[in-house]
């Protein structure tokens, strides 16, 4: 198995250890004997999307996000076609917001997003910062996801939106309806970093599984891989939140 990951805007969108997610996918692919290639996609770069099996994009400072905004929207139709086709994508924080319909800034300006996920985001009165534990709707074990959130936006799901999980500790999407993130097809949008994938190996494996299935055109066995260390890091957050695995 040879997988290729497109890392969108690694220069601009890399605020909170986002690279850890790429390293996690790479580690758990390579240690299964698979090949894993990372293609960095920067402003204006041409991409051969046919060769891409997985997509990752992180969050960035407002000024950096503004710089990639137009380039990202220009890639919209291509990207959307891939996501519809089932290419797995992980979008964290700023990238998650950009996959939604729009973002309304504090001074009322509306920035259009890709509109792939049925979410809208508006600037909140304060930043949501801290540990997050949530219970995911994804078909994984454990269902517990852990991470750290740090975002000023409040995100609301539309009628077609499916949350990635339910918050048990932390604020999640908006701090009011208990939802965190959004899922559509094989696209995961989330506010969780920390980084997310190293401490949630079940999600790393799910993304790899989806990518492998799509490439081979059918169910593909995922060779077993030890997760002791990953789950030990996971459990530190679960334990101090005084909740139990689900």
């Amino acid at each position, binding site marked *: 198995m040879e997988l290729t990951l497109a890392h969108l805007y690694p220069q601009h969108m890399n605020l909170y250890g986002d690279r850890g997610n790429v390293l996690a996918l790479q580690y758990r692919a390579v240690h299964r004997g698979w090949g894993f290639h990372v293609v960095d996609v920067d402003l204006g770069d041409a991409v051969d999307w046919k060769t891409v099996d997985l997509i990752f994009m992180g969050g960035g400072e*407002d*000024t950096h996000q503004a710089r990639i905004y137009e380039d990202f929207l220009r890639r919209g139709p291509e990207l959307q076609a891939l996501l519809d086709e089932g290419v797995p994508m992980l979008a964290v924080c700023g990238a998650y917001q950009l996959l939604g319909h729009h973002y309304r800034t504090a001074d009322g300006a509306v920035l259009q997003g890709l509109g792939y996920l049925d979410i809208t985001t508006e600037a909140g009165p304060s930043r949501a910062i*801290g540990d997050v534990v949530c219970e995911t709707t994804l078909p994984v074990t454990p269902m517990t996801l852990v991470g*750290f959130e*740090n975002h000023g936006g409040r995100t609301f799901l539309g009628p077609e939106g499916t949350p990635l999980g339910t918050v048990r500790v932390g604020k999640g999407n908006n701090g009011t309806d208990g939802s965190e993130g959004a899922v559509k097809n094989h696209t995961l949008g989330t506010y969780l970093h920390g*980084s997310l994938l*190293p401490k949630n190996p079940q999600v790393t494996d799910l993304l790899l599984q989806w990518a492998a299935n799509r490439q081979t055109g059918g169910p593909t066995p995922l060779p077993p891989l030890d997760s002791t*260390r990953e789950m030990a*890091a996971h459990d530190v957050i679960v334990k101090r939140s005084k909740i139990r695995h689900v």
Partner: protein
Amino acid sequence: MRFALAVWLGRVAGWVSRLTGRGGSSLPGLVARRIDPQVFIRLSSHLPQGVILLTGTNGKTTTAAVASHLLRASGLKVIHNRTGANLILGLTATLLQASRFRLMPQGDLALLETDEATMPKASQESRPRAIVVTNFFRDQLDRYGELSTTVNFVRRGIESLADQGWLILNADDPQVAYLGENHPRVFYYGADLSAYASSPGGYDVADARFCPRCASPLHYRRQYYAHIGDYECPQCHFRRPVPDLLLVDWQGGASYPLRIDFRGEQFAVPNRLPGLYNAYNVMAAISLALLYDVTLAEISEGLEEFRPAFGRMEAVSIQDRLVWMALVKNPVGFNQVLETIQQDPHPDKNMLLIINDHYADGQDVSWLWDVDFETWLKSHPAGKFWASGIRAQDMALRLQYAGVDPDSITVIEKPSDALDDLLTKTAVGQVTYITPTYTALLEVRQYLTAKGYTKHFREG
């Protein structure tokens, strides 16, 4: 009257707090400011040569330690805050405790290491004669959200600089240098190291890749680490200002002199601190000393005698094992420490990494994933690793994902137990590097004091 009451009750609070073993770095400030909110303004206006504020992401403590050492060497009486007491309460406490029996602080000037977010208030109240800014890197974003917020705090601080006050700025950090644009009195320091090779192909978080004036990508003629180097904007031609004080030769290691060019005149000064980041700290300190008319001879002598601040790349001998300690708190600082470890030619280097996530450490440990362990490991000889602290498991996982053999990583969450284990499992003559976060550094100090190893330590 209100002022005198504030000073005395503040001091009493400090004595009581120290007697009861609580350190007391901010309580006196709290008490005094409650009684007289103007107390810091009055105290600082009494100092004949005023207040200097020193801020920036990395290097504050070391720079302040070197600078106050140099200023003292020239005969000035310098008031200087203790490590960590760099918020407004700590700054206030520093000034009101700068005399035991008189009302006013006894000193010529105060050199105050100041947290970035405290800059607006500290500057407004003290009207500093000089502000030193070392660098801006991503750091503890869980506190302020984004780096631009931090830069704005410092910018607001600069607005309250005294008339005729000076800025001392790192010319090689674009966001720092930009603070000096259109300012009439700026002293810039920087480096021109033609022989210095920055780690090519490595992963580096450069937070200021873009022009602070027009936001176009910057072009670097030389890039030493992160976004530190000689840059120019191809769009608006904003460029690295010509440094008044220029580092022209740096060989690494802790025993090579620094060659410096001061407005056309070259000289060499002794240097006891390893790492290029420390050379920048020394440059900032020399800049400040020069501005206060300290002579080159006094600077040279002062640097010869200088010993590092506690836990800032400081060496101690524990049971005949050489142990270096270097505080880590953000990716750029950690990368610089790793590079310094790499420059140590010792064949057998062990590491104890202690990661806590209290407020003072930064509660978000995701920055560990931005540290370039991958590139560093390629040239790191075999050695043992200990991961410790509240987030020991995250640290161990980071090392494992970077390619460290899982069998050579020992996870012991309690730092004192990890240190005990390390001392039993390493041989005499081996070198160990300890990289703790802030509160972990305090735990290590407590351990070393309890074991009687702290003779060599002094407060930074």
